[in-house]
């Protein structure tokens, strides 16, 4: 069925490529774009960060070629392209021949190297000095690090080789005990024993406040802000650029047609609305990539190009309200309990409540006006209450679970008024009296 559709499309487009060939092309499109969105493949040039790129490249070149020690922090929000910036700079740096043979690269990540012992082991490993160190015992961390750098000096030739340290998630390194690693790295870069460049990447603006005084004084206070002053037209241009196929795509005609369709897509009115919504939410590349990936994944033989409807659908998937989704799947008893909690919150100004109060409120509703909801035994209601707690829609005020009986444990509702009301509107086959109970102010 889908095959025929594709054939029709081909005939209308007038392409002479055979069926199998077209599929191969499409797979290749998927491969290129998926690599771009998921694997964060490097673009040919950094987008919106040209001046920062130049600055960093200059700095690292000075270390690599002239043997000058430097330290720098790249600060920017998540998904703003810090790693991309660093990687493209490194790529360019390593293209220079004299640098490539000379420089040593040590990449550390705050998520992985959680303490200084692990970090030192990793440094030893990445410098290929495991056999040199062997079973040597060192008095201190500084001694060990000094030995490593010393070994490099003697290893190759008489002059020392520059080492480039990149610290991803820099703020996590500040949580190490005494910040020994940072202190020693900055100390080396200050006292100019070995040419060392330290590049830190972080998303915390207050990262300098996290450093100890002695570490801070040794740091060069050179910061690069990875913030691109992007406005909406540039954003749309970025979308178009991200979606379009590169020049070196084997089938030139297909690439041309694809790029034209992408261009048409970006000029569409509804697409612009979607993009503006996302632009207002955040400007980072990651969330954009997620949106485009979702749209791209729906490109199949039966709908061969990205259409505005696909992008709308992807945007809907991206911006779904999780809690509303979960509320939709609750049973009617659990929903009634949530309404009772909402009433308690309204009456007593967001004071915490316990199960007995909720049950009391629910019983009052049953006695007064319910026809559709049967009365349930108390243990059944307790089970529903516990399910709500498991879903983390309610939370105990103090963590001490075992001290008090579970009926009297104080709880807080983690939903707000509008969420409850909205969930009630969307709830399938909600009984009318329950709805009325929820809207009435008197509980």
């Amino acid at each position, binding site marked *: 069925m889908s095959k025929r559709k594709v054939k029709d499309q081909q005939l209308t487009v007038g392409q002479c490529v055979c069926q199998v060939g077209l599929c191969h092309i499409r797979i290749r499109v998927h491969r290129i774009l998926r690599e771009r969105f998921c694997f964060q493949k490097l673009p040919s040039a950094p987008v919106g960060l040209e001046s920062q790129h130049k600055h960093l490249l200059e700095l690292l070149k000075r270390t690599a070629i002239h043997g000058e020690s430097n330290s720098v922090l790249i600060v920017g929000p998540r998904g703003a392209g810090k790693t991309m910036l660093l990687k493209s700079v490194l790529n360019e740096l390593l293209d220079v021949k004299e640098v490539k043979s000379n420089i040593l690269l040590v990449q550390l990540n705050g998520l992985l190297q959680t303490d200084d012992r692990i970090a030192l082991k990793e440094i030893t490993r990445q410098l290929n000095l495991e056999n040199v160190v062997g079973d040597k015992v060192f008095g201190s961390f500084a001694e060990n690090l000094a030995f490593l750098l010393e070994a490099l000096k003697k290893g190759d030739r008489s002059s020392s080789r520059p080492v480039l340290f990149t610290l991803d998630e820099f703020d996590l390194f500040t949580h190490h005990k005494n910040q020994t690693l940072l202190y020693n790295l900055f100390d080396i870069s200050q006292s100019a024993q070995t040419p060392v460049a330290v590049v830190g990447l972080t998303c915390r603006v207050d990262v300098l406040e996290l450093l100890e005084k002695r570490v801070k004084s040794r740091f060069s206070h050179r910061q690069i802000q990875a913030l691109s002053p992007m406005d909406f037209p540039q954003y749309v241009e970025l979308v178009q650029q991200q979606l379009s196929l590169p020049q070196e795509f084997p089938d030139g005609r297909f690439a041309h047609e694809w790029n034209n369709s992408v261009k048409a897509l970006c000029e569409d009115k509804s697409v612009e609305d979607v993009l503006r919504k996302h632009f207002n939410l955040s400007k980072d590349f990651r969330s954009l990539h*997620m949106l485009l990936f979702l749209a791209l994944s729906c490109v199949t033989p039966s709908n061969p190009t990205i259409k505005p409807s696909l992008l709308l659908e992807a945007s809907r998937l991206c911006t779904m309200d999780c809690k509303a989704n979960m509320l*939709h799947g609750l049973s009617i008893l659990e929903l009634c309990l949530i309404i009772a909690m909402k009433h308690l919150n309204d009456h007593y100004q967001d004071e915490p409540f316990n199960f007995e*109060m909720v049950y009391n409120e629910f019983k009052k509703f049953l006695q007064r006006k319910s026809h559709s909801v049967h009365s349930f035994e108390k243990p059944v209601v307790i089970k529903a209450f516990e399910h709500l707690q498991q879903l983390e829609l309610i939370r105990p005020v103090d963590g001490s679970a075992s001290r008090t009986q579970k009926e009297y444990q104080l709880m807080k509702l983690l939903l707000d008024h509008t969420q409850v009301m909205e969930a009630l509107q969307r709830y399938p086959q909600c009984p009318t009296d329950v709805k009325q109970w929820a809207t009435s102010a008197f509980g």
Partner: protein
Amino acid sequence: MPDQLEHLPRLTHLLPCREAQIKTLLLLLGEPEHYSYPSIFIYGHRASGKSHVTLTLLKELKMPHVVVNCVECVSLGLLFEHVLLSLFGSSHTSLPRGPSLSDFVRLYRQLCSEDPAKQTRYIVLDHAELLRDMSANLLPGFLRLQELVEDNVTVIFLSEIVWDKFRPNTGCFEPLLLHFPDYSKVELQQILAQDSCPSYSPELYSSYISILLGVFYSVCRDLRELRHLAALNFPKFCEPLEKGEAKESDAHKLWRNIEPHLKKAMQTVYLREVSSVQWEEQQQKEEKEVGELRGLSAYTHVELPYYSKFLLIAAYLASYNPARTDRRFFLKNHGRIKKTNFLKKHEKTSNHLLGPKPFPLDRLLAIFYSVVDSRVAPTASIFSQISSLVTLQLLTQVGHDDQLDSPKYKCAVSLGFVRAIARTVSFDIVRYLYDFL
């Protein structure tokens, strides 16, 4: 024709009522050799087919994958070892003792360079909410595993809890969120009706299922629970047919027979008061009335010594009565108390809503001497009975600052329990409770 969607009809046959989700997943995973999104977070209610659909999909498409249940991984070492073993075979186990995430990533890269991925590898983490409690950097680490190991790997998280509750405070790589909606009533009926009994017609079974849903749907939407209940109660439903009292077409008669039985089941089997084995036994015995069997909660009644009973009663009274009413309840010649003042109550301040209040030991003993008719010497055994009530968790000690000098206690038993105790010593406790005046 190389298209992922060609598997769709086969899979929808295997997994009913999940067509849209299968389609989305298939499209997201894409061709085996393509990159997929680094992390996918799947959430939905219990028994909405999250793990079943994901696993069946990965198995049917023969993708290299590993499934880790986070409940089983009490230590990080177990988790890492399991992942490496199933992805790369058993040739190597060179993880150090007490491995860190760093060791895991290093080893993964090493193994991966020997055996580069031809297809996307998938790591499925079931019950992912437990990752939050393990180690602070574990969840962010897994979220960006693709970037860290530079391999074509995708991590799939499965959880009941929404993503908002996972996000660490410094942020992380955001996963792709995918929601598995709950089954609607029609879908539940359709799925439950699949496992019908061969000796009866499918129509009969589906009518049985609709009766079952009529009773239980407002309380429980958990497919597993419902399926369990359906299997347990079906023999009872068929009983009139076997005896020849009714035919398959007598829908009303069958309904009349089964409905009270199902309502009883909600109070017993559903709450696990009565185990399912007991329930089945009882159904066969037939002559015994259903529910006559004592459930678990009936066994909470404990045999206590005479004075312990009174101590417990006194503790209950001390916990649930305000101290200012003690004169009126427990003194023979209390002075004049204005009745209006005494009875002024507010519903919110009712202690049976707010829970027990702590009381000092002196007050407990004073009430105890007042409610016990005979003269009791304050011997060591009386005091040891108080502390043994604490070890039985019928009382709890509040504030551990002082063990000997005026300790404070709270009563931790329910009204039903204490009434049962009071009945054995023929003491009318309700007369002494302020809330029920």
